[in-house]
């Protein structure tokens, strides 16, 4: 008897677990306010911000900064941050495309899912990046090449003549390694290389301080605090114009002879964006409402200040249309990316 009760109890528990995710809900509230139905929905909804990378990173900090603002602006019951880590974001993007509720309660703070889909052409990708609902970009930033203050390479001219410098990368095929390989290709000295596998900015910077690698290419908002605390020095910005935060640092086009094909490749790597998007086909009024709230949040001086407080840097935003266009640009630049892939294989150890 006791065992029968136990089996029933366990079956009930499993049933509750499996169906705990709930079902999609349709709200039919009409009002003269275009967002009335969306507001009514969020008033009784717990919103989840999905971050495809680990806690403590730049993406995670951006989402945690935004969470209290979005809770207030959406009028949501709660807004919580969940790190859904794995396979450079593929786990999170697959979840958003295939499993997440399509009701606007799940919002992602990530990078462009198109890079996994197009650049890496990964068989694990189970989504179509152009179908996501793009809502905006809360921070977009350029990449910079840095060295440690004690480095024997104090400027890019010294790097040009070097034949044994190494650039640290997170993994393989990540944007840091892409930029590293491209620099090696442009300089062209055979002894240089990219060493991958450091995983995070802090670990790569430690490797630089230990002398294992000489340089590191990373988004400026991730680097800014480290530069302020004198852990690294920027020597080059990957962009056509100098950055307002580091006006003394030259751009790659100023100091290196970049061929036309290399220029196209450089421009086809997306800038590091903290983009906001939802699963495909969420109700249009809710998508519009989130977009509206994001614009309000970005315009709020206290949000800018919070971003500057946590990263030291605020470089501007993009609206939903521009964000979607960047995604499409990546898809259209697929051929350039395939060349980049061969560069990575050439320069990475």
């Amino acid at each position, binding site marked *: 008897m006791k065992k029968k009760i136990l089996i029933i109890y366990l079956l009930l528990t499993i049933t509750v677990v499996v169906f705990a995710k709930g079902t999609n809900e349709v709200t039919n509230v009409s009002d003269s306010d275009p967002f009335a139905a969306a507001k009514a929905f969020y008033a009784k909804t717990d919103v989840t911000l999905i971050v495809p990378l680990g806690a403590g990173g730049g993406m995670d900090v951006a989402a945690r900064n935004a969470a209290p603002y979005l809770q207030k602006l959406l009028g949501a019951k709660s807004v919580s941050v969940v790190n859904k880590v*794995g396979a450079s974001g593929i786990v999170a993007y697959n979840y958003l495309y295939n499993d997440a509720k399509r009701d606007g309660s799940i919002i992602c703070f990530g990078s462009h899912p198109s890079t996994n889909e197009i650049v890496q052409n990964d068989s694990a990708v189970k989504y179509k990046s152009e179908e996501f609902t793009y809502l905006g970009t809360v921070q977009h930033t350029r990449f910079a090449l840095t060295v440690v203050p004690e480095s024997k390479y104090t400027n890019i001219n010294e790097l040009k003549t070097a034949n044994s410098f190494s650039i640290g990368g997170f993994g393989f095929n990540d944007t840091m390694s892409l930029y590293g390989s491209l620099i090696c290709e442009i300089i062209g000295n055979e002894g240089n290389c990219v060493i991958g596998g450091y995983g995070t900015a802090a670990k790569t910077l430690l490797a630089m301080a230990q002398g294992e690698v000489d340089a590191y290419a990373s988004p400026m908002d991730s680097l800014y605090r480290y530069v302020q605390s004198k852990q690294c020095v920027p020597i080059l910005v990957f962009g056509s114009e100098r950055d307002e935060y580091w006006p003394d640092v030259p751009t790659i086009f100023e100091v290196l002879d970049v061929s036309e094909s290399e220029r196209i490749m450089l421009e086809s790597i997306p800038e590091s964006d903290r983009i906001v998007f939802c699963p495909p086909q969420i109700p249009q009024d809710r998508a519009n409402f989130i977009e509206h709230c994001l614009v309000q949040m970005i315009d709020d001086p206290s949000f800018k200040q919070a971003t500057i407080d946590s990263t030291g840097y605020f470089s501007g935003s993009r609206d939903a249309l521009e964000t979607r266009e960047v995604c499409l640009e990546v898809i259209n630049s697929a051929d350039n990316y395939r060349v980049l892939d061969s560069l990575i294989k050439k320069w990475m150890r």
Partner: protein
Amino acid sequence: MELLTAFTEGLVAVFAPQTLLWIGIGSIIATILGIIPVLGGELGITLALPFLVGKNAIFVMPFLLAMDAVSCTGGSITSILLNIPGTLINAATTMDGYPMAKKGEAGRAIGAALTASAVGGIITVPMALLMIPILVPFVLKFKSAEMFLLIVSGLCFISVLTTKGRVVKGLISAALGLLIATIGSQAQTGYARFTFGNAHLYEGLPLVTVVLGMYAVPSLINLFVTGKAIAADSLITVKDSKQLVQGAKDVLKHWWLTLKSAIVGYIIGVIPGIGAFTSTFLTYGMAKKSSKTPEEFGKGCVEGVIAPEAANNAKEAGGLLTTLAFGIPGTGTMAIIMAALMVIGIQPGPMLLIENTSLCITMISSIAIANVFAFLLCWFNVPFLTKVTRIDPTYIFATVIPLVFLGAFSRSEKMFDIFLILVTGLLGFFFKKHGYSAPSLILGFVLGKDLEHYLWRSIDIYGPAFIFSTPICIGLFVTIILVIVYKPLVEVLRKIIARNPRGSHEKAI
């Protein structure tokens, strides 16, 4: 002089009534979360974070650190009573803690675990404070080659985790662990291995699920099948409260082991990239090697509880120091604490130790106070908690199995984790039944990924002779060789001496 002022300010801040209150609340929450299997400090910190944005760092950080520092104190209780690690780093405690509970000595084991945890957590705080000025040059010495050799030295203790006469099965278990660690994308090359196009396997198998499967599921099945309480009343000869005192006395009796384990745990905490999990198994192995009664290990030896418990609480001060100085979190919980620091507007890095020394001192000191809180909280509740060992196992099974599955499911909200826990649970049950070593598998699994990672990177950077690249590498290499050959060498020498007694030796000369 400035440093002295910062020390005073930091210590004054940590003893302020409001800070103490926050530490007390954090300790209570984390101890309770630590006791419940599969939960733990990380969950508490994640849930608390949204409420702390905009609050004063002097209160927020001690609160979060208290949650992190003491969850493993509570976690030792379930390791001992149920053979289920409350938090992952309590896994080594199960090896002797649970056998002690089965012998009716749960109170003694918990007394030893709580005291060792408190001592380890407290004595390493002054060490951390004194280390602030020399931390950066110390950590900079440990590059990829040194890290590889440190991990190899951890693997050398696999033989210690196996019971006598089952060394081959122990080595097979460890090899299987190393093999499982190769699942996922290889960091240097990006090649996906054994993933079969499944994105959930790209980061490798999740440690939490594997540990739960290997430990919790077989123990619970075993309890259910045998139908006997963990320790029958008849086995308990001394009252649980008296056993607690006995456990505390054991720690004092083995003071050198406690101190040694705490120092090792602390150093491993300081060095980024190894993880606390290794320190508990490493100190367990060291305790067995140095014990007068190594044959008692695995059967309920109190030294096997003291060593990992002293190490796992000792790692907190070291881990925090590295997180503050380099922004490299050693654990998932430290990563969230680092995120909290950044949200408050504090950037970890060497400049933090220089420019905000008093806050760093407040944070590190709060770990010691949290350990005192956790010790008192658990100590007075143990006589009640040890009654778990006398409960009908059907009820334990019915309560804990859903928690285990929920814990695995909540990690990713994917049925994949439920499936994985079933597979690892079956594997664990097979291991238990046929005498294979689950701890060896776990150690191989935990160290395998880093082992490969540091090996390839060392070869890339320093070449195949990287073992001889620095004096630290040479020292570590010699230590590893000594650990491996010491016992066989002594045996061989003994046999040679026994075959050639003194007389015949002299005659030969």
